[in-house]
């Protein structure tokens, strides 16, 4: 097929040549999103990066518009949100897109993270790429928490109270951090004001780390379901049009789910209590975070000691960053790891179970179950990952990505990439 562009971008017009010799921006984009070699065996779990970029865009655009109408004060926040819902043209659409967009962002990021864990995408040479992803996830959590406080309903207020009190448990600097966030001696007007400022700031930091994440990706190349590197041009296809069209298709399908929640279940993922204006004198019966924090909330409450709970909760996220070194297996993809694969699905089930437990009151059997699940969560990283790699016998890996698709010895019509492209995926950027 001659349809494939050659590997490098060659400016054609005089203007393009003039510009490219001064700032090779078009060439950079071309090498990253057009000629970039993509393993030909990627499945739909690899489309979630594109879906996540789409949601970062949606959140920033709707968020900037909402900020034009929102009033960051304890007195005006709740009413200004209702003003957006009632009086701003399509304000209800902006707000429901933003609120449900946050949830969909987390749905996509969880699929993305579990995909990385299943296919061993964190292993060499992608450690930095993966750790940047963990950083993005942490920033997302902070942003989502700050955003949830802004409508200044009961859950906003009490969520902010619980979380800022948690931070106070940090030794030495805890109190300082807490009063800096509060802007006073309790959660109040200065708190909303600075949370709004931080909520506006963090997405741009996410966008910055996303650039690094994509940069690192384009240096190492993508992992793939077989977990073996691109060896010849036949193992890869150019990003455009093959990955582009697949990503666009998957994103549009995911938008159907998003639209369903925005238009028909806009409050399903939220809490009814957050439609009650914040009241420092009345504590809600159950203070529960948004669904995407529930597993960590369960871990926090599984420990009777406050500081211990805080340490464990943060460790649950931070431990993700150590996966590249905790996993001792040489085989990346769990497709070829019969034992680890089963442990992986148990781990997924435990995460769901923790999420369910996080929504339950911290009493009786729920606490015991949370403790068992928390222990298993950490055991997965600290025991299963190192030992599985040492004692498991992986099944035979395919000779190449092409072979993993076609079976050994078969031929496929049409070469994937022009020769040379796949062997040097890092020519630019």
């Amino acid at each position, binding site marked *: *097929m001659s*349809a494939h562009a050659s590997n490098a971008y060659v400016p054609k017009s005089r203007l393009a040549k003039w510009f490219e010799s001064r700032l090779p921006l078009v060439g950079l984009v071309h090498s990253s999103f057009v000629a970039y070699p993509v393993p*030909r*065996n990627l*499945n*739909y*779990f690899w489309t979630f990066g594109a879906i996540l970029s789409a949601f970062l865009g949606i959140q920033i655009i709707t968020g900037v518009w909402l900020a034009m109408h929102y009033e960051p004060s304890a007195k005006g926040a709740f*009413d200004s949100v*209702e003003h957006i*819902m*009632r009086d701003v043209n399509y304000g*209800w659409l902006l707000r*429901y897109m933003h609120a449900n967009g946050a949830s969909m962002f987390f749905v996509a990021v969880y699929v993305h993270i579990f995909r990385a864990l*299943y296919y061993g995408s964190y292993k060499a040479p992608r450690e930095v790429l993966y750790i940047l992803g963990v950083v993005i996830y942490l920033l997302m959590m902070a942003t989502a928490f700050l955003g949830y406080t802004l409508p200044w309903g009961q859950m906003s207020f009490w969520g902010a109270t619980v979380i800022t009190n948690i931070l106070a448990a940090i030794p030495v600097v805890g109190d300082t951090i807490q009063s800096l966030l509060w802007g006073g001696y309790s959660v109040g007007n200065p708190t909303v004001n600075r949370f709004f400022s931080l909520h506006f700031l963090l997405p741009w930091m996410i966008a910055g780390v996303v650039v690094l994440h994509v940069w690192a990706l384009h240096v190492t190349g993508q992992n793939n*379901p*077989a977990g073996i590197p691109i060896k010849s041009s036949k193992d890869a296809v150019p990003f455009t049009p*093959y990955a582009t*069209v*697949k990503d*666009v*298709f998957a994103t*549009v*399908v995911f*938008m*159907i789910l998003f*639209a*369903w*929640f925005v*238009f*028909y*279940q*806009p*409050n*399903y993922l939220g809490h*009814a209590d957050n*439609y*009650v204006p914040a009241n420092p004198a009345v504590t809600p*019966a159950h203070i529960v975070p948004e669904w995407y924090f529930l597993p960590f909330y369960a871990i926090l409450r599984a420990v009777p000691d406050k500081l211990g709970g805080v340490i464990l909760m943060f460790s649950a996220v931070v431990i993700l960053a150590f996966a590249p070194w905790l996993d001792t297996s040489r085989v990346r993809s769990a*497709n070829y790891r019969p034992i680890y*694969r*089963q442990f992986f*699905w*148990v781990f*997924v*089930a435990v995460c769901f*179970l923790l999420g*369910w437990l996080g929504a*339950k*009151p911290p*009493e*009786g*059997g*729920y606490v015991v*179950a949370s403790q068992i699940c928390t222990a298993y969560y950490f055991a997965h990283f600290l025991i299963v990952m190192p030992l599985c790699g040492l004692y498991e016998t992986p099944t035979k890996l395919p000779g190449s990505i092409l072979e*993993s*698709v*076609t*079976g050994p010895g078969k031929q496929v*019509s*049409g070469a994937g990439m022009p020769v040379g492209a796949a062997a040097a995926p890092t020519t630019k950027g």
Partner: protein
Amino acid sequence: MRAKSLIAAALAAALIGLSPASAEDGHAPNPPRQQWSYAGVFGRFDQAQLQRGFQVYKEVCSACHSMRLVSFRNLAEAGGPGYSAAQVKALAASYQVKDGPNDAGDMFDRPGRPADRFPPPFPNDQAAAAANGGKAPPDFSVLAKARTYERGFPWFIFDAMPFVGYSEQGVDYIHALLVGYEDPPKGFEVPDGGHYNKYFPGHIIAMPKPISDGQVTYPKDAKGNPVVPETVDQYSKDVSAFMAWAAEPHMMARKALGFRVILFLIVLSGLLYYVKKKIWARVGGEVHGLQPELHKTY
């Protein structure tokens, strides 16, 4: 297979071992589910019902409950009770609204205008609390979205889904609360200033039974009979529907737009699927699934 059975076993263990723990929490029975004209994908508010509900609010509830985020003009807007602009103007004018300060620096009362919000029955929360046994009656503006009840596993999963979805928990709860006043069971102590309600969490509610049969006179049909029964059950349904609208005045616009958006996305994704298939055919097609080595179809 083994992974699946492990997950199933874990879930089963969780359900068997843990469900009794919630029994202590849920002593109020779940509100009975009602039929609402505005439920579901094609749901629309029943204008006549919203008008009756507004009548109940105006004649009964508004004595104590404010509705501070709703403006008179909203009553004439599309997707609402469908009053005419003239009706709303007349209605607004029947209220006195505090305005000012004027050029002399004085606050003054004037007849309401459609752009005004519903004036509250009490000047502030403290006055409302003082007049109502120590607790201010909640504002009606978003109350239908601020109330709910827990559906529990697995129902909450079905509630999110198309066709079996359920998002009217709040209105069902309000309706149940209004019809839930009854004599306390034997041995149940109701403290002074409290009232027994079957559906209120903890059963003791500060609000006395707010409405009784025949209290509000509904519009009559040609034969002189009320169009719907003048019962507490009917009043409750109507005022709950009205509160659902007050909490979400653009609901009908939302559902109508959503239908078009989702239809568009389905068609677009169908087209994109075939575009993608055609493009990938150039390199011999693509692989699907978690374990591509199990899908060697070409």
